[in-house]
């Protein structure tokens, strides 16, 4: 997120640079500043940066951004410092940092990157945040004040205090005060501890922790007290967080399983290729993003129908070519679809690549929704959770309220009777399988935002999916929803004290024992089914 923002800022900076005289001036002071930075040894970098900042050059911000993003390079032959616009592949697009003039492509061999590391990047962050504190938008100011937390040093105190005087927005003031308090606690200021007592920010806790360990007993005692207040608040937040984690994992399970709940639960096809249909959905997302470079968000949204269509088409092909010949032999569908899953996996390996593919997370899905400093809900997972519920609701509607749903239920309950009433059972089979497969594709689109997009994607979810469907009760969509969410929550509740592996084992053993108690799952299909 931060990077993307910075990139846009960089572009703005470059655009403004363009408005400057387009021809480079021989005696442009920027040349010296940049060369100085590029050639500075690690210990001198800070000086070089300060020189740039204090030069008051309007292009300074752009240079700093470029430097922070690893985009400053020096041409080996001439020693000229350039901005790299695109650093992928062997030939890089470069531009003149002084004029913004495009300099075409240059081989990587000819360029020497201006080195930066985390320590410098941290300092740079502080400097840029300081610049942002004067931004007109209070949100930007708040964000930059937050960036300042823990980064305030003796040099920054004064400008910050000055800024605090001017600041009008209450939330920005709070932030600045906290940032200052963190610094002051470090200096042994008792009053500052008060300011931090209400803060949930990890940096605040960090500085209090340092104080507790410190030499000043009065400060340590006070800090300890403040910490215990914070701990109290954290507990609640932690519980909420765990619940969110559980629901999020649950929603992933539901998404992965819900298509199977249709093909397997309703049609009785044990579709081992279900995982690969998910995979196809994920690859569709990747494909869409390749088609629409630079617009990952749009591509992702378009992938929803596209992923559905691709997987549904694959489903239709599978149904027509194989499954229709296996009517009434459910266990054999297991074998044939297992074969199909091997083929699909290898197909992806051969046609696309055995390596994972990059699927970009659009900006509006990155980061998290901040409830408070200790509790923030990751946005991508929140979207997936919402998406799972929407998909579920849509499926319920289709099954309950549409002609197709009615026909599907009729065919599954009594195929011959349904046929004699004029329902074209074959068509219903195709539609049902396509629907289940399409939903698997949707799951793939969602999963592409959470995990690897690679040939093994499907395998990782197939077993979990079957567990969820069976645990919920075959043929019951509600069962799948409840089962997925509850298994996810149980898993996440167990994880903190049992560890990830043991938690998973416990969940599996729980499923085994549960099936003993209720051999037909959580919501068995009821009825006085006459004994065969």
């Amino acid at each position, binding site marked *: 997120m931060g990077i993307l923002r910075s990139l846009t800022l960089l572009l703005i900076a470059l655009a403004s640079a363009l408005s400057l005289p387009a021809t480079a001036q021989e005696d442009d002071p920027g040349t010296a500043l940049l060369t100085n930075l590029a050639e500075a040894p690690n210990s001198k970098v800070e000086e070089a940066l300060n020189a740039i900042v204090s030069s008051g050059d309007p292009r300074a911000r752009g240079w700093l951004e470029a430097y922070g993003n690893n985009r400053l390079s020096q041409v080996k032959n001439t020693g000229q410092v350039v901005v790299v616009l695109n650093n992928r592949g062997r030939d890089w697009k470069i531009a003149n940092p002084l004029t913004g003039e495009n300099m075409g492509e240059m081989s990587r061999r000819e360029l020497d990157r201006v080195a930066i590391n985390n320590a410098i990047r941290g300092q740079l962050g502080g400097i840029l945040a300081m610049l942002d504190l004067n931004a007109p938008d209070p949100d930007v100011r708040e964000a930059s004040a937050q960036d300042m937390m823990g980064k305030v040093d003796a040099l920054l105190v004064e400008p910050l205090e000055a800024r605090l005087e001017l600041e009008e927005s209450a939330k920005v003031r709070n932030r600045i005060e906290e940032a200052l308090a963190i610094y002051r606690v470090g200096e042994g200021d008792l009053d500052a501890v008060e300011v931090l007592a209400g803060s949930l920010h990890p940096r605040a806790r960090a500085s209090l922790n340092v104080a507790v360990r410190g030499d000043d007993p009065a400060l340590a005692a006070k800090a300890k007290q403040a910490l215990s207040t914070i701990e109290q608040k954290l507990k609640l937040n932690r519980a909420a967080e765990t619940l969110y984690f559980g629901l999020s994992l649950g929603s992933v399970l539901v998404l992965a399983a819900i298509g199977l709940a249709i093909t397997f639960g309703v049609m009785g096809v*044990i579709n*081992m290729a279900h995982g690969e249909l998910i995979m196809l959905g994920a690859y569709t997302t990747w494909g869409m993003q390749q088609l629409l470079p630079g617009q990952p968000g749009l591509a992702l949204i378009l992938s929803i129908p596209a992923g559905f269509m691709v997987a549904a088409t694959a489903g239709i092909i599978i149904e027509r070519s*194989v499954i229709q*010949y*296996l009517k009434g*032999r*459910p*266990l*054999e569908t*297991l*074998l*044939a679809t*297992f*074969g*199909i*899953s*091997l*083929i699909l*996996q*290898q*197909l992806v390996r*051969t046609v696309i690549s055995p390596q994972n593919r990059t699927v970009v997370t659009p900006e509006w899905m990155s980061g998290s929704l901040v409830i408070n400093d200790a509790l923030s809900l990751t946005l991508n997972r929140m979207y997936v959770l919402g998406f799972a519920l929407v998909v579920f609701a849509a499926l319920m509607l289709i099954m309950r309220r549409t002609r197709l749903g009615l026909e599907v239920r009729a065919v599954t309950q009594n195929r011959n009777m349904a046929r004699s009433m004029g329902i074209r059972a074959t068509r219903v089979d195709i539609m049902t399988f396509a629907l289940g497969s399409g939903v698997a594709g949707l799951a793939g689109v969602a999963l592409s935002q959470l995990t690897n997009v690679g040939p093994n994607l499907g*395998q990782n979810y197939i*077993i979990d999916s*079957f*567990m969820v469907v*069976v645990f919920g009760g*075959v043929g019951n969509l509600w069962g799948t929803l409840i089962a997925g969410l509850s298994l996810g929550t149980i898993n996440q509740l167990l994880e903190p004290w049992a560890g990830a*592996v*043991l938690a*998973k*084992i416990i969940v*599996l*053993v729980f*499923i*085994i*024992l549960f*099936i*003993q*108690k209720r*051999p*037909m*799952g959580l919501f068995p299909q009821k009825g006085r089914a006459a*004994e*065969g």
Partner: protein
Amino acid sequence: MASSQNWLLRPFQERSTQLFLGVLFTALVVVTFLHLFMPQDSALHVSAYTVTLLGKYLCYALLAVAVDLVWGYLGILSLGHGAFFALGGYAMGMYLMRQIGDRGTYGDPVLPDFMVFLNWDSLPWYWQGFDMAWFAFIMVLLAPGLLALVFGFLAFRSRVTGVYLSIITQALTFALMLAFFRNEMGFGGNNGLTDFRDILGFNLRTDATRLGLFIATGIALAIGYVICRAIVASKLGRVSIACRDAEARTRFLGYRVERVQLFVFVVSAMLAGVAGALYVPQVGIINPSEFSPLFSIEIVVWVALGGRATLYGAVIGAILVNYAKTVFTGVMPDAWLFALGGLFVLVTVFLPKGIAGLLQKRHKTKPDDDTPTRQEATA
């Protein structure tokens, strides 16, 4: 029904069993002969590599027979038989580890290398006794048998059937896989058990031992096959089929279906354990991936390919698929999965009764003497 008085001898009177045993023993003798007496450069020489490979196929064949017994005749599609196979393998692996003694890298007389490595100071209790061959060999049967007993008791008692049963067997093997992956479990984690030296005093790295293991596997397969055949040909076998086809009816006739299922399931698990135990010294490693659910599904595929509920079909299927795998992974490493996957699809669609179904069609004019036309209907 010219049945013998003794249920165990009955299979020897069946033509199919006679044929099977005949083929198996001929193969054993021929391979042994070609390996020992043909000169190395002769076209007919069977190398030690091939002998071990064949030994591995025979292990898989025994495993497939075990699966066919429960799936074909009892109607229980176990997607977790790999677990029993692996447990038998681990029991054998533990014995082989203890046989290494102080010849390990770190020279610890008792602790296997991986334990020294992870700073264990003493042998965990469940490793005790595995230095004795007889104890280990009993555990080969007991470990999978007990697991099957407990699991089967719970599952069959509460009448978990059909796909629910299949899925919880899968959950079982999946849980075991995760557990064995854990290094804290004391089974070597992902690396499993390896670097074996000798078995019963014979050096595992000599061709003679390999041949011996191959022959032992062949004999184990023969015994396993006869035991399964004997069960199938007994009245209990017919009760099994009855349970498979009409469970409620069988119950109303006074049979305790869950006990029949449990008995056959445990026998099958033990056979799978034996297969695993013979597999480990031949391939030289046992690791948790044998517990992988996909492996268990693959076993079922072998059986389906060979022909369900025939026993010999399972043998054919296991050997054929694995032979194909050996050949394809060498000949077309990039595309062998297409061939294998395609094979599964084609066989299920076009050969619903598997390869055994094809063979039976040819023999239709000469039905088996004791069970006239049963096998056709059961496939």
